[in-house]
C-alpha cells in the first residue's frame, strides 16, 4: 500500500458511468453529479477502479 499515491480522474475522458463506484470494495468512490468523488482516506490503492474504467480515465500520480 503506497499511501502517497493520488487518484486522478480525467474529467474530459470520464463518461460518468459510475462503474468505478460499483467495483470499489471499500466505498472510496462516491457518486456526485460532476463525476465520481474520491475519498482518499478510505482508499486501499487496490486499483480495481482504474483497471475497470472503460475509458481509462483514472490515473495514479
Amino acid at each position: 500500500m503506497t499511501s502517497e499515491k493520488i487518484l486522478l480522474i480525467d474529467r474530459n475522458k470520464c463518461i460518468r458511468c459510475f462503474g468505478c463506484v460499483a467495483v470499489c470494495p471499500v466505498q472510496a468512490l462516491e457518486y456526485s453529479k460532476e463525476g465520481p468523488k474520491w475519498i482518499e482516506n478510505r482508499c486501499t490503492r487496490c486499483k480495481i477502479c482504474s483497471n475497470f474504467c472503460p475509458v481509462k480515465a483514472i490515473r495514479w500520480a
Partner: protein
Amino acid sequence: MIKIDKEVDVIIVGCGPAGSWCAKRLAEYGVNVIVLDRNEEIGTPVRCGEGFSKTIEERLNLKLPSFCIAQKIDGAFIYAPNGKFVEVKGFGYVLERKMFDKWLAIEASNAGAKILAKSYVYDLIKEKGKIAGIKANIVGEDMEIKGKIIVGADGVESMIAKKAGINTTCSPFLVDSGFEYELANIKLRDEKKLEIFLGNEVAPRGYVWIFPKGKNRANVGVGIVGSNEKGARYYLDKFIASREELRKGSIIEVKGGAIPVGGFLRDMVKENVLLVGDAAHQVNPIHGGGIGEAMTASEIAAKVIKKALDKNDSKVLKEYNTLWYKSRGNTLKKIEKLREIVEKLSDDQLNKLAEALEGEDIYDITHGNYLKLVKTLLKLGFKLAGF
C-alpha cells in the same frame, strides 16, 4: 411544489426498470409508494445496449408503445473469431431506453405511485438500530421520508445495499466493463438482426455488439472482463476502425457502465430493506441483459412486499429470496456456469464450436441448457475442467 408524504409504506430508491415496475405493481395493490431517482430526467443518461426480448414482453404482459421501440428484431448473427457466423432466430426489440424508462415511470405514476426525479438519496435514517427511512435532496431541498420498507433499485453501485449492510461489491471478475457508441449513418447487414462478435482479440471474455436502431443507426458496443489493462474503449475503437461500414458513421451518444455477470446474492434482504435489479446482480451472465430480469424480480418483490405489509411483519420479505431463485436465480446460475466454460475457450476452439452448432442449439444454450454445449465441446475433443 407537489405534495410529498413524509411517511409512506414503501420507499424505492432508483427509477430504472426495477424501481418503476416494482412501484407500478405496489401501487396497483393499493400500497403507498414513493420512488426517488437522482437523475434530472428519468431514463437519462442511458447505460444500456437496449436489447429486449419478446419473451419478456410476453412474460410481463407489457404493451410496449411504439415510441419505446427503435427497431423490431427477428434474430441474430453470431460471428466466430474467424468471421464465420451462425444465424439464430429470436424475436425482440432494440428499445429507445430513454423513452422506455420514462414510459414505465409514467405507468407507475398513473397507477398511483409518486415518482420524484432530481432526488438524490444520500443516507438512510436509523432509529433504535432499525432502518426507518431515507434522507434525500429532493429537487434542491433536503428532506427526510419515513417508510416501512425500503427497496434498493439503485443499480449496480447500490448505495442502499452498502448502507444497509448487504455486501454487493462486484468482484472485478464478475463484472463486465461496457462501452458503447450510438452511431448514425452506418451500413448494417440487416437491420432486423442483432450482430454479436466473439473472440479473445475482439473482446476478452465478452463480445462486441451491433444492435440496430433503424436502417442506418445502431448501438455499437463492447463488454469485456472488468479487469482488463487496455479497457473496453480500446477494443471498441479498434473494432470500429477495422470496419469501413462503421468508421464512416457519426457519434450520436456515448455510454457505458458496469454489468454484473454473476455472483448472485444468496440473501437480497436485510430486515426491511430489499434489493431488485442490478443492485441484486440480477443480470443474464452470458449476454448481460438485465432489463427483463430487473422487471421479473420486481414483480416477485412487489407480491412479497404486499404480503409483508398486510401481515405487518418484515420477516416475510425473506420469501423473496426463495421465490426469485425458483423463478429465475437457479436458471441464471446455470447460465453463469456456462459462461465459465465458454470464457476459457481459445479463438480456435470458438471457431470449431461455431461450425458444430446450429442456430437452435445456441438459442437453447443462452437460455440455460448448458449440457448441450458441454456435449458439443466434448464431441469436438476439448478438455473441460470439471467434466
